[in-house]
C-alpha cells in the first residue's frame, strides 16, 4: 500500500502550514507576557 499523491500533498502542506504559524504565535504570546510583565 503506497501513499498517494493527494495524501502526500495534504501531509506536507499541513505540516508546513502549522510550522509557519508557530513562530508568529510564539512572538504574540511573548508580547502578551511582556505587556503583563510575566516573561519571568
Amino acid at each position, binding site marked *: *500500500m*503506497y*501513499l498517494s*499523491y493527494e495524501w*502526500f*500533498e495534504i*501531509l*506536507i502542506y*499541513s*505540516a*508546513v*502550514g*502549522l*510550522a*509557519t504559524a*508557530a*513562530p508568529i*504565535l*510564539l*512572538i504574540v*504570546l*511573548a508580547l*502578551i*507576557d511582556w505587556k503583563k510583565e*510575566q*516573561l*519571568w
Partner: protein
Amino acid sequence: MNSVVISTEWAFTILLAFGVLWVAFGWWLGRSNKSLDDFMLAGRNVGFAFASATAMATWITSNTTLVAPQLTYQFGIWGMVGYSMAALGLLLFAPMAQRIKALMPHGHTCGDFIRMRYGFWAWIVFLIVSLFYAFGWLVSLGMAGGILLSALSGLDYHIGMTAILVICVCYTLLGGLKAVIATDFVQTIIILSGVVLIAYIGITEVGLDTIHSTVSEESPQLLNLLFPAAIMFLFNNVFFGIGEIFHSNVWWSRAFAFKEKIGKRAFLLSGMLWMPIPIVTGFAALAASSLNVYPPSADMIGPLIAAKLLGKIGAIFVFIVVFSALASSLDSLLAATSDLITKDIYKGLINKQADKQKLFKISKYSILILGVITWILCLPKMTTLGALLNFTGAFVASTIWPIVFGLYYRRLNGVGAALAMALGTSCGLLAYWLVGFYVAALTSCLVSLVICLFALVLKDQKFEWKDLQQ
C-alpha cells in the same frame, strides 16, 4: 557532488558573530542570578511564552534537522512521520509537569524524585541510565556540530565541534537556565523561520508532484505504508521519545522552573507546534533523487539538499538554522546535566553538608567539566548520529513506567523500579544488537512494564506523597 558550499571564512564569521551574541546575552541575563535557584531554575518563575518556546527549542535538536532527513532518506514517509511522533513525549509530559510541580514545589532534579520516592538503589540505577543518555545526547550534538561545518564549509570536523561546544559552555556558564531559556526563544524563531523557508523553496523549486513521482519510480518503498522496518521504527520512536522526556532532567528542570500552572499548557502547546517540524525538515530528503544529490553518508542528506536548493546565500542561512538548533539543545542539556551532577552526585554522594553557595560554585564547575568530557568523547567521530541516538533508546525507555507509576501510584516499590530499569535496559540492548536499533526502545519499555506490573502484584507499598515535599 561537492558538498562544500560556503567558504571557511564565512563559517568562521558566522560562528564568531553568533558566539559573541549568545555569550554576551548569557552574561547580561546572568547578572541577576543571585542564588542557586536563580542559576539552576531561572528563579522558578518562567512565563508561558518562554516556557513553550524553550520546551519546543530543546526538542528541536540537530537530530530534528539532520536525523529527520536521514531517516526519511532511509525509511521514507514513516521516517518523518515516525520522528514527528516524538512530540507525544511533550504532550504526555504536560500533565506530569503539573503534578511534578505540585508534588515537589522545592525540587531541583528528577534524581531528587527517584531518591525520595524509590530509595538509594533505584536512584543509583536511574542516575546511570540518565547520565549515559545525557552523554549520548551531548556527544551526538557535538558531533552534529562538526558534521554540519564540514558538510557546509569544508572546515575540519574537530574545529567545528570544538567551536560549538565552547560557545554553548560559555553562555550557559555565565547565565544559567535563564540564559538557556532566553536564547532558546530567539533560537526557536530562527529555526522555525529557517525550516519553513527551506520547505517553501523546496516545494516551489522542485514541486511536490515531481518529488512524489520520482520517488514512486526510483524508490517506491519510501512511500510504502507497510514498510515493516519503518513501522517498527515508528513505534520504537514513540517509546524512545516518551522515555527521553519522562526521565530526563532537561524536562524536569523546566517543570520546576515554570510558573505555577504554566507547565501543562506550555508542554501541550510546544508538543503541538513541534509535531510538524520533522515532516517539514524531513520531506526535502525525498527530493534527493530529483535533485541528483547522493550524500557520502546518510546523515549529511539534510544540509546537502538545503544547500543544493538554496545556493551559497541559502547555505549560510541553513548553517545559522542548524547552529541554532544545536545550541538550543546543547545549552539545555549542559545546564540540566550539571544540575544532576551538582545535586545528585556532589550533594547526594560526595558532600552531603554542602550549602547552597557551595553548590552554586559546583554547578558552574560541572558545566565546564561536562563540556570538556563531551569534547573528548566527540574527538573520534565514532558512529552516525542516528545510530548513537538510537543506542540510548534502550536506556531511556526503561524509565517510562517507573516514572509514571512513581508519580501517580503509591504502590510501586524501590526494588521493582530498580529491577524494571536495569532489566529493561539490558533486554533493550540485547534487542539492539540481535534485531536492530528500531526495536531497542520498544523492547526496553515492554520488559520494564512487565517487571513493574509484577512488582505491583507481589508487594504493596503505601508511599506517602507528603514525603516528596521535603
